[in-house]
């Protein structure tokens, strides 16, 4: 049993933290950094023991086994022997920064009224100074896709990094995706109409699907015309049809997913992603052949049906991957924002239930980057990519050893302090001082 000398660690954190004020975003990388001796988990399946990682001006310039090179380590050298380096974890389909305290309505900015809202953008409501956002960093979660909720078309998401003064500085990819809440073939009875509140076949399912198709058709027609009048929702669809804005369809049912595949073909959509995908396994072959990836909902859930395998949510990502589907993990659901920092442990659990550990890592790094369309810059430790990475004392997918000493976003060394670590220190000191009295 490996025990970590926690006191030295506390000292380390306090020392390294003292140079950064909490919540103050780090400045641009000014000198090269060389991380030496760590086990590098590349995020694309590869592992380099005793590695050398160099980055300059925010970009990785070298990832190599340390013994394969005789080059001088440039810039600041971090000795990371016995430690592990990972690409920053990416939280897709997140509402971080849109809601601060779920029970306080004044802090909620996730769900705009209306049904068809492609023009509504999450980015401008994203609170870069959220206390919850900063609590992601000490667990290695450094990037997120911020997604509006509600309606049939919820709006347009953007991808941000988690260390910024404001939303503008936070942007990794603006307006990356359109989010559709696919209608459910089942619906709860409307008690106010004296219907049984249980879930029943949704008689309006086809109607709602048709609404979406009609909206797409109207948008296309409008965009083809002279656009006399500025129809904001239609205009927001232009990048969708061009293929620049990916379409994220939030859907779980097997039949519904088949309908989504049809919809994709009918609309000629190039980039479509299934979000949730609880029952995607039954249509994995179709998803594979259509090259539709799936953002699987958090493995830390209970099965929906009493007869299902108790570990179904734990292993769904693996089962889909085994079928050849590109998979990553998203964490929406109950208490999703504060739980987003558990993203690495979601992946760890998938590994515990059968997936290879490096493959499980891909579920929150390179696969996610591919699905979000930011894989040319993020999601793996590779030469030429952004230096968005962190150093952990041990296996970052295991909560016992996910203990960060350094984290970098675009080469900037970010603070690992949070509102929570401050309170921790304040009260730890209170009792320490009591003892010494």
């Amino acid at each position: 049993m490996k025990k970590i000398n926690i006191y030295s660690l506390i000292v380390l954190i306090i020392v390294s933290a003292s140079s950064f004020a909490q919540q103050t975003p780090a400045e641009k990388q000014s000198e090269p950094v060389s991380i030496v001796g760590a086990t590098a988990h590349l995020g694309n399946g590869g592992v380099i023991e005793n590695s050398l990682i160099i980055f300059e001006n925010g970009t990785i310039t070298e990832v190599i086994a340390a013994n394969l090179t005789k080059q001088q380590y440039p810039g600041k050298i971090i000795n990371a022997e016995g430690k592990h380096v990972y690409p920053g974890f990416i939280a897709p389909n997140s509402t971080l920064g849109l809601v601060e305290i779920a029970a306080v309505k004044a802090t909620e900015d996730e769900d705009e009224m209306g049904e068809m809202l492609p023009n509504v953008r999450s980015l401008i409501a994203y609170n870069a100074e959220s206390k919850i956002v900063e609590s992601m960093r000490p667990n290695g979660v450094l990037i997120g896709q911020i997604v509006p909720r509600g309606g049939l078309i919820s709006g347009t998401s953007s991808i941000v990094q988690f260390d910024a003064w404001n939303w503008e500085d936070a942007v990794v990819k603006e307006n990356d995706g359109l989010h559709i809440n696919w209608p459910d073939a089942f619906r709860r009875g409307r008690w106010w109409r004296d219907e049984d509140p249980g879930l029943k076949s949704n008689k309006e399912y086809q109607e709602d699907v048709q609404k979406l198709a009609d909206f797409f058709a109207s948008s296309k027609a409008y965009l083809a015309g002279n656009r006399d009048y500025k129809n904001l929702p239609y205009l927001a669809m232009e990048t969708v049809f061009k293929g620049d804005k990916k379409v994220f369809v939030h859907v779980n049912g097997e039949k519904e997913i088949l309908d989504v595949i049809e919809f994709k073909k009918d609309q000629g959509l190039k980039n479509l992603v299934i979000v949730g995908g609880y029952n995607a396994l039954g249509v994995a072959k179709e998803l594979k052949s259509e090259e539709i990836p799936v953002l699987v909902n958090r493995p830390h859930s209970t099965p929906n049906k009493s007869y299902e395998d108790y570990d179904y949510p734990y292993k769904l990502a693996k089962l889909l991957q085994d079928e050849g589907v590109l998979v990553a993990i998203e964490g929406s659901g109950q208490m999703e924002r504060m739980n987003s920092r558990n993203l690495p442990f979601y992946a760890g659990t998938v590994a515990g239930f059968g997936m290879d550990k490096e493959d499980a890592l891909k579920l929150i790094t390179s696969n996610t980057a591919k699905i979000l369309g930011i894989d040319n810059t993020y999601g793996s430790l590779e030469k030429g990519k952004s230096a968005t990475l962190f150093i952990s004392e041990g296996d970052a997918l295991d909560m016992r050893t996910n203990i960060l000493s350094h984290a970098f976003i675009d080469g900037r060394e970010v603070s690992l302090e949070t509102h929570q670590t401050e309170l921790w220190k304040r009260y730890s000191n209170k009792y320490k001082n009591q003892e010494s009295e």
Partner: protein
Amino acid sequence: MKLKLLILGVFLGVFSMQSQEYFPKNDGVQMRNTNYTVFKNAKIHVDPQTLINNGMFAIKEGKITAVGKSINIPKNSIVIDLKGKEVYPSFIDLYSEFGIQKPKRAEGGNGPQYDAAREGFYWNDHIRPETDAVAHFSFDAKEAEKYHKAGFGVVNTHVPDGIIRGTGMLVALTPEVSEGDRILSDRSSQYLSFDKSVQSRQSYPTSIMGTMALIRQAYLDADWYSKGNADNKDLALEALNKNKDLVQIFTTDNLLNELRADKVGDEFGIQYVIVGSGNEYQRLDKIKASNATYIVPLNFPEAYDVEDPYLTGYLSLEEMREWNQAPANLKMLAEKNVPFTITTHSIDAEKDFKSNLLKAVEYGLPKEAALAALTTVPAKTIGLSEKLGVLKEGAWANFIITSGDYFDKETTLYENWIQGEKKVLESMDVTDITGKYDLNIDGKQYELDITGEASKPKVEVKMGETKIGSKLNFQENWMNLLLSSPDTTKTEFIRLVANVPEPNKTISGKAILPNGNETSFQATKKTGSEKDKKEKDKKEDKLPNIMPVTYPNIAYGFKEKPKQENVLFKNATVWTSEEEGVLENTDVLVKNGEIVRIGEGINAGGAKVIDATGKHLTAGIIDEHSHLAASDINEAGHNSSAEVSMEDVIDPTDIGIYRDLAGGVTTIQLLHGSANPIGGRSAILKLKWGESAEDLIFEQAPPFIKFALGENVKQANWSGNRFPQTRMGVEQVFIDYFSQAKAYESEKKQGGDFRKDLEMETIVEILNGERFVSSHSYIQSEINMLMKVAEQFDFNINTFTHILEGYKVADKMKEHGVGASTFSDWWAYKYEVNDAIPYNASIMNDVGITVAINSDDGEMSRRLNQEAAKSVKYGGMSEEDAWKMVTINPAKLLHVDDLVGSIKTGKQADLVLWNNHPLSIYAKPEKTMIEGVIYFDIDRDEKMRNEIKKERNELIGQMLKEKNSGVKTQPVTKKEEQRVHCDLLEEVQ
């Protein structure tokens, strides 16, 4: 109302059966029917066991005067020959709303209503024992006819509203007499239920456990009141006392509630008659042990429409099984000798009663038992064995006349006699004209095929190979047959009419041709109808294979309960949760449910050896804060609900139990929710999957109660109007109740006729240190407050649960001596958890507080090992200490650490075998044992998965077959898994 009924009686007086008339008559002369009616040559079912072939019986003035093989026929007799027919006592339904006006729903108001709306009655509007069914009754001829057609003669009816619903009345369904004649008993029984009255909006009780507590308190209060202790008039309690000796009928709608009702009755020496759910077979041993008589519905679920495989995926195994098994319920009850009657309530008596009854018989219910359930058992249950349900001298002349064995599908119910009054349903003299005939009209030859029941024959007519349009009407033995012209381009008809007073080889009559000419026709019978043969073919359809009942009767339930085993875990890494720490290469021997030896190289001595090389053995995980396995969480109707107990609402069928076992959890504290400052009593459970609710209870565990502070109790996140609305008020609630309890205790000590108050009794236990408090809490001010209030009343808070700001007052907590049970890393979901930090457990642990990690959540509960491990990350806790937070520490908090929570000789063998380091994210339990019984086994789980798949397939096949045979099906509905924890209180009003 009563008066009105009597006036009605005057007009109907001519039919009256009173032997001595005292009503004045102004519409003619007084008459009295003193004639006998004698029935002869009948097959008489005197009672389910006694049959008289070719017997006779006589009735007079509504009663049976003689029954026998041969009886005297008085001179003033009308004799009816029942040759070939059978006579049964007519049926009795003890559970109905027959003739009762629907109670009016109370008008909506603003926000919840906490006080009773009535004055002069009990403090709770849902206790309505004074309700008198007679005052709400008027004979409903249309409904009565449905009962007549189903063979019923007497029903017990009541006002179906409220928890204690008042008296029911026993009514004969006699047509054409006065109410005065029909009412056999105006106070036949008292009814109870778990449902609140629609006539009041009073909030309390909001839960089943609250309902149970309310019934108990009402009984106690009634007893106290009866001794003249109250200053006020309470008409409800007076009525409750008056109704005490009546038959008590408790309505339920699910199996768990059936057993709960019986439990309450047992506590007060009352044996309820229980209106069941039809699912009694799922826990037959407990049903039998209840000693209750059951009134069982016949509402078997329809098969599901499983044609769409995508939709079928949403169908649970238990729903499919219920369809498959429920028709065998009555058979299983009969086999187990559970006394039961049958009710038509919840089905259409006219359309579905007989077919469902026959289905039950087809599934193995003996006919005699079916008959008894409809006649002698209800008669006995209602205390009228001599008068109802049998055909013997002195009994009411309530009987049905049938064409043959009642349980034959083809049998016709001719007449239903009630109180000697005849109700004809089908004429007994219908001539059976079914068969194949050669028909000759005006020189043309037709072929006639008449099929179906004698009273409702159907016809098919052909001319050569051409089918002829036809319509047959056969009434009062007059046949009217309409034939269309063989030439379909014309709308021309031939009309045939004939009287067929008796079966004959030929039918002849008049034919009216399209041109208006009249001629005669003759139809000559060739053969009998082919229906007999068809019927036989159908009979050969086998019953679907009935699935075995499992415990619980859902997926992953056990067909046979796993047995206690003696087991030697060989060569494990043993996490003792004791001073010994973690022992490598160690053996642990389990015998008779206990840990008997820990060491190296232990001899198995006959115990089953499990090779644990490379594996980790730990004590079972204990979750201090769980809401699994509960039918209800909150009694939110009052700001204190100390009288309610979670032990009353344990749901042993929650799949969450099995999933928790798969996560290594063996013990949970099932806590009341946080809707009110003083919540309800806890249930501490061992997760013995498959056992009944009562057998899940951890017997040796001491009593606990839930308190709550903060946003939930002050209704901060929804609009409430109940005191308290601030933290200031919360303190006052506690001081108030503790003061009340002090006063209560000292009054109690003075003796005398003391009003026992279940709420106060519980709070007195708290003050005396006999019941421990686990208090939901978040911020430091309230934590401090509750400790100070407790100190003021000289007791200790045992546990602060959630306690997310415990780290801010850890020193004060240490001083008070309270333990902490917290979340590992939850925060930011509401305002009061804004300063919650994941380092909380570590800080409190460092200060020396006994700290546990709890779940409050059915998902997190099954990963508590991971949650404990987070303290290694947040705050650098040692792994051994982290592991203690989910084993021995919660055991200490629950005061069961002498029994469970660690691996120590003499402790109960609640053990988990892990494939990996138990704090690692990669760990999963392979075996979870409670008291030497392996309740979760990863290999057995694999086997069960395959069995479930197979069973689903078979049931889907059965349902498809059912649909193809034209039986009505129901659409699949999706069941949502509901995960409750006390921090998501949207449902709480």
